[in-house]
C-alpha cells in the first residue's frame, strides 16, 4: 500500500477488512429489518465508520464483534428515529439471515407462513425486537440484553413474554388450514 492515513497501521486496516467482510451482510440485514431500505446503507456506513475509529474497542472474536456492531447500529437507529419519525419502521421486517437456505418442509406450507406473518405484525415493536435479536440475529441472551441496554434477567423475561404473545396471536389468526394443529398446542390462558 502506498500510504496510510494518519493514525492507521497496516495491521489496523487488515483487521478491519476482515471484520467488514465477515459482518457486512449481517449488519445490513439487521438494519434493513428496522428501517427503510433506502436509509439502511447510510446507517451501515455510520456504524462501520464508528468501528473503524474505535477499532480498539471492537471485540476480537467475530461473534462478539458482530454483537458490538449491532449495538452500535441500535443506537444510531434510535438517534435517527428521534430526529426523523418517518424513518421508524412500524413493524420489523422478518428477513432471514443472509444466505440461509429455504428447506424447512413443515413450515414451507404457505398458509402457515401467512399466519405467522400476520401474527408477527400484531406484535408490539418491543416484542418484535427481542424475538428478532434471538431468532433471526442469533444473539445470545447476554448479547441481546446488551444491545437493548437491559439486564440479562429482564431480557429473558421479555423474550418469554414475547414468545407467549406470538403464540397467542398465532392462535388468533390461524387460517382454517393450520388452525387445528395450532389450537391443539395453545393454551388460551397462557398469554401474559
Amino acid at each position, binding site marked *: 500500500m502506498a500510504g496510510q492515513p494518519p493514525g492507521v497501521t497496516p495491521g489496523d486496516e487488515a483487521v478491519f477488512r476482515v471484520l467488514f467482510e465477515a459482518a457486512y451482510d449481517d449488519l445490513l440485514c439487521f438494519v434493513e429489518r428496522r428501517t427503510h431500505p433506502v436509509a439502511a446503507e447510510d446507517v451501515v456506513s455510520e456504524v462501520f465508520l464508528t468501528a473503524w*475509529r*474505535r477499532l480498539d474497542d471492537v*471485540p476480537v472474536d467475530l461473534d462478539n464483534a458482530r454483537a458490538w456492531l449491532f449495538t452500535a447500529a441500535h443506537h444510531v437507529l434510535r438517534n435517527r428515529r*428521534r430526529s426523523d419519525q418517518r424513518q421508524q419502521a412500524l413493524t420489523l421486517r422478518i428477513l432471514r439471515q443472509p444466505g440461509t437456505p429455504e428447506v*424447512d418442509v413443515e413450515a414451507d406450507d404457505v398458509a402457515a407462513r401467512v399466519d405467522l406473518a400476520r401474527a408477527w405484525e400484531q406484535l408490539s415493536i418491543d416484542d418484535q425486537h427481542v424475538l428478532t435479536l434471538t431468532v433471526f440475529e442469533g444473539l445470545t441472551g447476554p448479547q441481546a440484553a446488551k444491545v437493548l441496554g437491559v439486564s440479562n434477567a429482564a431480557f429473558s423475561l421479555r423474550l418469554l413474554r414475547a414468545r407467549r404473545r406470538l403464540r397467542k396471536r398465532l392462535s388468533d389468526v390461524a387460517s382454517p388450514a393450520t388452525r387445528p394443529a395450532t389450537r391443539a398446542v395453545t393454551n388460551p390462558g397462557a398469554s401474559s
Partner: protein
Amino acid sequence: MNHHDLDSQLRAAARPVPRGRVHQAPAQDLLERIVNTPRAAMGATPIGVGNGRRGIVRHPARWVTVGAAAIAVTIAALVVPGLGGDREAYASWSATPAQLSADDAQTIGRECVRKLEPDFGYTQADLSNARKVIAERRGEYGYLSIVTKRWSAACFRDKTGDVQYSSVFEGQVTDAQLGRAGIELQGWGQLRTSEGHVRIMSGHVGSDIAAVDVSLTNGTTVHATVDGGYFLAWYPEEAGAGAGTTVTLHKKDGSASTGLSATELYDAPKLD
C-alpha cells in the same frame, strides 16, 4: 409448539436475503472510503456502546496499554470519590460543581470541536453560533456541553489536559415539545481517561426546572450544573455500570420529580 418449533417456523416464514452483498460495488466503495479515513479521536467511547475486549491478538503492541487501562478501571472502582478508599483516582472530584473559567471553557470548546470536525463535520463556526455552552469544573476537571440548533456534544478535559468528546446527539426535541417540566437526556455515555472511566451526562430541561440531582446506586447524590434550560454532570463510574441511576428534577415551586431512570430518559425524553 415449543420454542424451537416456533423459532424454526419464524425463520421459515421470513423473506430470504441473498448473501454476498459485501462483494458488490456499494459495499466495496464504502470499505475503501473508510480505510482511507484517519482513525481520529480514538479516546472517546461511542454512544451507548460498551467497551469490548481490546485487540490483544490483533494489536500486541497495545497490550501494555490495555493492561494499564484495565488496572486503572479496577482502581477507579475501588477508590472513586464518595466511596472511600485512598481517594487516588479522581481525588479532586466533587459532587457539587464549581464554575469553569471563561478561558478554560473557550479552550475546551475549541479543542473539542477540532476533534469533532473530522468525524462529524461540525465547525468552529457552529461553536461560535452555539445556542448554549454550559460548563462546569469539578476539581481538576473541566466539562462542558455545546448545544447548537442541529447538534449537541459533551466535551471533557481530564487532569492531563486531554480533551475528549462523547455523546454527540442530533434530533433534539424543541422547547415547546419539552414543556415547562420536561427533560431530555442528550448525553449519557462513558469516557475513559488514565484514571479510569467516568459517566458523563448532559441534557435539556423545561423552564420550571431549577435544579437536577443524579442519584447513584452507591448512595451518592451528584448535583448537576443547570443553566438556561440545560444541565450537565459527570462522575467516576466503573465501566459498563449505570443501571439504577436515577434523576431528580427540582422545580422552582419546591416540588420535585424523583426516581426518573437515566437509561429510560436516554431512550425517550420526558415531555411535560
